[in-house]
């Protein structure tokens, strides 16, 4: 461990960024506490990536609706972040008398500036909770140090749809990976390089940037730092080429979950070398009854299945009654589908209960969403 610099990194997670892109799902929770992939919450990805890369001091910046996040994180033990030295720090808003609800990343950082200053760290690695990926940050930090960059942005290059591009910061880079242009909310299409909103920056430098920007009334890291200061700062891109999905709408949430039905994607994301950790619920294994038929699906523990399930994601503790047909659905924790019901192109939030012999069928291009705790 002596040669690694990862012990000098403070990880910062923005749990509420991009909440507004998935309003149904964030009604009672943060982006970070959205359920994903059968047994995870979105924050599990940045936290596990930090921990698997050797970062053991992590601050989680919240804004509102963070009760579910607190429940999920607990002491941070499941991510091995319950430590005497460092560990997990939950950073709610209003940490001092002057602070107000932040408008952008810079104000959010300003609200926790005392915490950042107090942590023994040389670098800060920031991440949001809208990206599903398994990233090793060790080579990113090495590249950051080697390039002498002021800021390193992690990027992903590929062919994306216009909606995704519009929701992202797009970078153009030269042959040395130096960022030459920053576009926010552009109408581009085709191949481009997206910023994953994961940045490495020296701690003291970040503190200076934040203090200066706030004094000038600026609050957007993307617009007021990356874009405005492109001429003054050396901003370098680091390309991550592994599995990547971004949640930027309910449709993309649905598709990202379904994408895991492809076993190759599943293997790439959940590589045994770098596990994704989550809160343990101590469910029994899932039980497949007589006449159950399950195909092309992802099933978490604690489910009891007596019907037909195809092309679906079942979270922990889902109950599928006899004679039920479930197709193209995402059924979150403890959903109950009563005997004889038909469910197709549907997302149910936690604790949804559907009575016997109901039919809920939505169109292929837009899944129906049923809110937390609803009974149908």
């Amino acid at each position: 461990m002596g040669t690694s610099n990862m012990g000098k990194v403070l990880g910062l997670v923005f749990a509420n960024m991009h909440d507004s892109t998935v309003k149904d799902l964030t009604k009672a929770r943060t982006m970070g506490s959205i359920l994903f992939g059968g047994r995870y919450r979105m924050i599990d990805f940045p936290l596990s990536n930090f921990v698997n890369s050797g970062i053991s001091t992590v601050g989680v910046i919240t804004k509102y609706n963070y009760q579910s996040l607190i429940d999920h994180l607990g002491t941070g033990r499941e991510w091995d972040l319950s430590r005497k030295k460092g560990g997990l720090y939950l950073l709610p808003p209003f940490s001092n008398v002057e602070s107000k609800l932040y408008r952008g990343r810079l104000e959010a950082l300003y609200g926790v500036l005392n915490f950042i200053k107090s942590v023994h760290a040389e670098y800060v690695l920031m991440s949001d909770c809208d990206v599903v990926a398994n990233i090793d940050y060790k080579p990113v930090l090495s590249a950051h140090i080697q390039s002498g960059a002021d800021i390193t942005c992690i990027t992903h290059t590929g062919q994306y749809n216009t909606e995704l591009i519009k929701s992202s910061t797009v970078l153009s880079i030269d042959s040395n990976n130096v960022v030459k242009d920053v576009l926010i909310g552009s109408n581009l299409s085709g191949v481009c390089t997206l910023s994953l909103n994961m940045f490495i920056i020296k701690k003291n430098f970040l503190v200076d940037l934040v203090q200066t920007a706030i004094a000038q009334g600026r609050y957007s890291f993307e617009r007021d730092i990356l874009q405005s200061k492109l001429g003054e700062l050396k901003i370098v891109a680091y390309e991550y080429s592994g599995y990547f999905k971004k949640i930027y709408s309910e449709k993309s949430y649905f598709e990202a979950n379904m994408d895991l039905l492809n076993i190759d994607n599943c293997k790439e994301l959940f590589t045994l070398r770098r596990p994704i950790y989550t809160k343990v619920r101590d469910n029994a294994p899932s039980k497949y009854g007589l006449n159950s038929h399950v195909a092309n699906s992802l099933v978490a523990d604690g489910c009891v299945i007596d019907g037909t399930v195809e092309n679906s994601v079942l979270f922990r503790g889902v109950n599928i009654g006899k004679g039920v047909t479930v197709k193209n659905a995402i059924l979150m924790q403890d959903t109950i589908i009563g005997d004889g019901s038909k469910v197709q192109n549907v997302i149910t939030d936690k604790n949804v209960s559907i009575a016997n012999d109901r039919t809920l069928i939505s169109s292929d291009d837009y899944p129906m969403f049923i809110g937390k705790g609803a009974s149908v």
Partner: protein
Amino acid sequence: MFNKKECVAMLLAGGQGSRLYALTQKVAKPAVPFGGKYRIIDFPLSNCVNSGIDTVGVLTQYQPLVMNDYIGNGQPWDLDRVHGGVHILAPYQSQTGADWYQGTANAIYQNLSFIERYDPEYVIILSGDHIYKMDYDKMLSFHKEKGAAATIAVINVPIDEASRFGIMFAHEDGQIYDFVEKPPEPKSTLASMGIYIFTYDILKKYLTENEMDESENNSKDFGKDIIPALLRDNQKLYAYRFDGYWKDVGTIDSLWEANMDLINPNIPIDLYDPSWKIYSRNPALPPQVIGKSAKIQNSMVTEGCVIDGTVDFSMLSDGVIIEKDAIVTDSILMPGAVIRSGAKVEYAIIGENSEICDGAHVGRRPEDMPNRDEWGVAVVGQDIKISSGKVVAPKEIISESI
């Protein structure tokens, strides 16, 4: 005393489990995987914490590595406590010498100093080879109510199986007046479950006296020596009747049956009851991936499994892979087992991380046997490879790759 506990549990987990053969080559019996995501020891440990007992000594001796690693600091069972919690108690060297545990009574005797640290009124002795859900607190209330010296949990067993157990004879009110260890011709069906609650002073007295007894027929065992000594002295011994599900998993057949019981909807052991969860150490694996050609019925499957073949009446542990065109029926697959395309596994137990290759055939259905007497569950041990086209006969136990 600051650290005082009313009741301390001592869990005898040193058993070699020699009747599980290849399955206990590398692990002690209580650490044998069970029920998809558990190990046998999860049942008594979870019972302890669910019964409000937060101080547990786990006595190990045989192959302790996996067990020590598994139990760790006890956090998965909520047994990482500031005072109390779970402690691994291995044989140790003292000034008077070093001894392996010689019998169940001797094992507890060697750890009296552990018990004394908590100054308990009562000690509950448990074993690590039974599957059951039981509220020990109710048994303790019974023990206190009766003012007993010792209380033994008993269960009614079929008369033809009674000769495998320690058999009690009790009055209507539960007071035991006789006890016979494994009688050839049993006259009662009240079998000892190997769960004892002792009033601590009495336990200490009898363990100490037993230790002094240097006669050759002293096996330093609870069933053979301590309980008979209490009876001889007319100590108040009570039988506490338990009528839930309880199964000894000391043999290949009983281990197989107990797993199958979890799948059987008519057997009363409910793992889905949120008020009495069975806890286990979690391997942090993704959900099970069920492929397009999968066919799964009457089975239990857990995290990390990737299933694309046919599975019927089977118990699949974490990380099991069943490829397309593989068939698994009436079998138990332990963590990390891989069944390749074209392989067939019937009435078998496949040990941890073992691989069954294309065209191999492990076990057989009893109805396919010309002579039913030759039928039995086939066993493939841990880390073993059964090569393409090889056959493992019913009852066969494989402890080296073929």
